[in-house]
């Protein structure tokens, strides 16, 4: 059964303190791994799609990487506006329409 586990559950950083969020996954065949950002009271906002091990994507202070078993979302010199819940999701080749989500990492960046 497809499974996505995110860690840590919550993370507090000082502004400028870089860190990484982890997403471990189990799928029979990965079609894609997705990162989303969700602010309180809003819908998830798409960040990145990664398709194969070794792939990397960057957007401003965020960089997503992918291996065969996990993905990392690296946050470099975060700012308070980066505070949000970050969600990871996978798409299995056998059920290609579905996204299987992890429970997310709540990030708080303090000024």
């Amino acid at each position, binding site marked *: 059964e497809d499974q996505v586990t995110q860690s840590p559950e919550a993370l507090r950083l000082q502004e400028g303190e870089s860190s990484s969020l982890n997403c471990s996954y189990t799928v029979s065949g990965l079609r*894609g791994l997705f990162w989303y950002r969700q602010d309180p009271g809003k*819908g998830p906002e798409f960040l990145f*799609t990664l398709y194969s091990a070794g792939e990397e994507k960057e957007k401003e202070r965020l960089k997503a990487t992918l291996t065969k078993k996990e993905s990392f979302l690296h946050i470099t010199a975060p700012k308070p506006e980066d505070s949000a819940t970050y969600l990871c999701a996978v798409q299995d080749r056998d059920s290609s329409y*579905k996204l299987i989500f992890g429970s997310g990492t709540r990030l708080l960046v303090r000024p």
Partner: protein
Amino acid sequence: DTAVSQTPKYLVTQMGNDKSIKCEQNLGHDTMYWYKQDSKKFLKIMFSYNNKELIINETVPNRFSPKSPDKAHLNLHINSLELGDSAVYFCASSPLPQGGSEQYFGPGTRLTVT
């Protein structure tokens, strides 16, 4: 320009009532979805339609019935509401009928059943 919109934003109702949530996307996508986010923030797929055809129907009670009048709209009707139906419901859409494409989410509808 709202890409995926849902109405209402909040819905408070009593057990046993029937209610509907509407979703519209102006992105020109062929595939639309309904997700449920519970109190622990897990997002779980409920249904998916591709060009008005049902393609995903997860283990959801029969009280939940999606309807897609056209490919830009996907509504969710819920009969005989129960306390456990309280959650945030998200509509989403994606550009490709096959997998591998990102999904764009609406703002959510917070349903509270009392």
